[in-house]
């Protein structure tokens, strides 16, 4: 299953499942990143890490190691 770390710039996806350390999962939730939410990968930092996503009207930066905890379904025609 693809994770958030597998997206390329401009791709949209739907969040399916979030795993990882409790502090991470809780923070992700607090920032509104829940199962079922849709997001878009909008930028990748110069050295390939971290990545920037847009989620509604918020933008978040995540390290790839963190993004790998988030399973997604890629949406090809948003």
């Amino acid at each position, binding site marked *: 299953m693809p994770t958030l770390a597998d997206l390329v710039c401009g791709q949209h996806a739907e969040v399916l499942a*979030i795993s990882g*350390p*409790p*502090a*991470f*999962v*809780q*923070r*992700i*939730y*607090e*920032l*509104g990143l*829940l*199962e079922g939410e849709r997001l878009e990968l*909008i*930028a*990748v*930092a*110069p*050295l*390939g*890490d*971290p990545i*920037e996503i847009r989620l*509604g*009207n*918020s*933008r*978040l*930066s*995540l*390290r790839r190691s*963190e993004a790998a905890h988030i399973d997604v379904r890629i949406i090809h025609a948003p």
Partner: protein
Amino acid sequence: MAMLTTTLTVALVGNPNTGKSTLFNALSGLRQRVGNYPGVTVEMKKGQFTSDGLTFELVDLPGTYSLAARSPDEMVAVDLLLGRRPEEPRPDVIVSIVDATNLDRHLYLTSQLLDLGVPVVVAVNMIDAAAAQGLTINYEKLSGALGVPVVPIQANNGTGLPQLIRTIRQTAENGKIPQPLEFPVAFNEIIAHITKELSDQVPPVLVRRLLLDVGGYVEHEFVAEHGKRLQQLLTKAREQLAAANCPVPAIEARTRFAWVRNAVAAAVTKPAQRPITWTDRLDAVLTHRLWGTVAFLAVMFVMFQSIFLWAQPLMDQIDAAREWLAQGVEDAMPPGPLRALLVDGVIGGIGSVLVFLPQILILFAFIAILEDCGYMARAAFLMDRIMSRCGLSGKSFIPLLSSVACAIPGIMATRVIENRRDRLATILVAPLMSCSARLPVYVLLIGAFIAKPGSPAWLPGLVLFAMYLIGFTVAPLVALALKRTLLRGAPPVFVMELPSYRRPKLTAILRRMFEAGKAFVIRAGTIILAAMIIVWALLYFPYTDANGESYPERIAQAEEAASANADRLKELHAIEQPTPEQQAELAQLEETASLADKLNGAWKRQSLLGRLGLWMEPVFEPLGWDWKIGVAAMASFPAREVIVGTFGLLYDVGDVDPGLVLDGSDEEGQAKVVSLTRAVQDEWAKDPIRGRYGVPVALSIMVFFALCCQCGATLAVIQRETRSWLWPAFTFVYMTTLAYLGAMLTFQIGRLMVG
């Protein structure tokens, strides 16, 4: 409720970048103070204003996404809201400030605030940005859905603030406690069970946090108090919840966001197509792999250039003012310990504090602009990968880079780092970055021992570069070592919000500059001043020689005699072929002229610090140093560049202003620097070790100064920022150890290479 008093305590709570500080400043104006709490590094601002005879006490809590506290710093806010801090009254009203363009996410925190049992008012900020995005918000419906009053405001121009104040007042007067959110039945049953087990009076919201925040602060605190049994109870309760399809912590997010979504659906009309915002357009460039990097480098270049370009003239003026004042006091007072204390201790000390101000103010102007406009988070985003190599995050980049100019504003800039361990690691390695105060030391020694006639022209530049490189390589290594040992812990969450771009506000920038400057001068300044006075005293006492004659008096006489003879000396110098009598007179007058400097040297050599240096000479020996170098290094404790002046005193050429080493335009000053260089060279030439190994000794001193923490101001700022004497002490010890070992290695290897 508590309407007998005429003071209302109001807490401001909101996510970061909601305009919370703007609202706080708009309401409280200039009547602000900072509240500190023992054991934590957070500061909370408090302000006061009066409206219709009622005094409002405002508390500005640090921006947060949630009440799920994971550290003592985060717990302070929760405790304060619950009235669990003995030094603070429980707030009468909580103002939950939310961003109108992002209600979907911001109302999550609002929903947690409803659990606290305190009346809540929601202030919806940035209504103009919402309108620009085509959002229409029905505030009455929103208020109905949330069950608390809602006031639309625009904090940066004051729109809606009178209405907000009236609403806060009304809410306090009717004292309506909001209804907490309904959680699933399975969850409530388990909460009831845990509450019974705890047996004593615990606020219901803390029981919720105890269950929901796995590994959170409340759990740590309660398990420490109630023992392992509670831990087992919690684990079992969470297993039961997971089995009942209410997994922790997802259950909280699901419940609250479902509630938020309903409220937003009832009150907000969004355009069918999300409009392209300025933030979208800017981010397309500023976080772009190539253009983002180019823009970042340009921003950093402008920042640095400004610090050097604008700070230097101001620093020179502060120096000039200090000299002018010192001269004035010297002229007005009779010589003696009191005058020396005022001139060298107090005025010198205050001068050495104030001289940092231009750099601090300029850097903080930049930091305020970068933070307020939203770029700071982008800079952290761009630099995160590089910084992750040494166990830190992108947020440490600007503080460390700033430390190349000066560690003090760099350390103060670490406040942007929320993670306590990352922040500490950054603070502890910031003084390793090669700051501008090291430059006079490098230039003096390179000029004296490296840039000799006959040596290659590129050598001095290479040595200077190597000195900077020491800081750039050692700092990340130490950071990595600290993160693996002393500051080890669960990896922090690096997820970071990139806020929308916003136009920075001039008053907010000026306020930040003022606060940074004030904090430095008042808190750090007093400690620096004390360090300066102590070192001054160690170099001043005793001030009589073996015959009981006073050095300062003899120096004053010698100076008088020298200035009386100055014209005659010039005349003699002008004679091209002097007669033997004239030659003898010249030699005698020259001796008179240098007598004051010699006396000064003799005085410092027998001062307390001089004697300590002599006694400690065996310690300096492995570094290739004699006791004079050791004394100069020790005397430079308040500030590195002081070593130049102390060298001047100890090598009998009088006090030398370190600024002169770098300033080629001042002829008289250059002459003084040249004579110091020559004095050091001559004296070392007479010595078997330093005569033969001059270059390794010079390098050893430079390496020592590259790594040491001979900077009282830095230590004082570390104390201020960490609120503990442990960390400055640790910094001083580890850096001095590194410096000693580095210098020893340099000298010993150099000695072998020279042969």
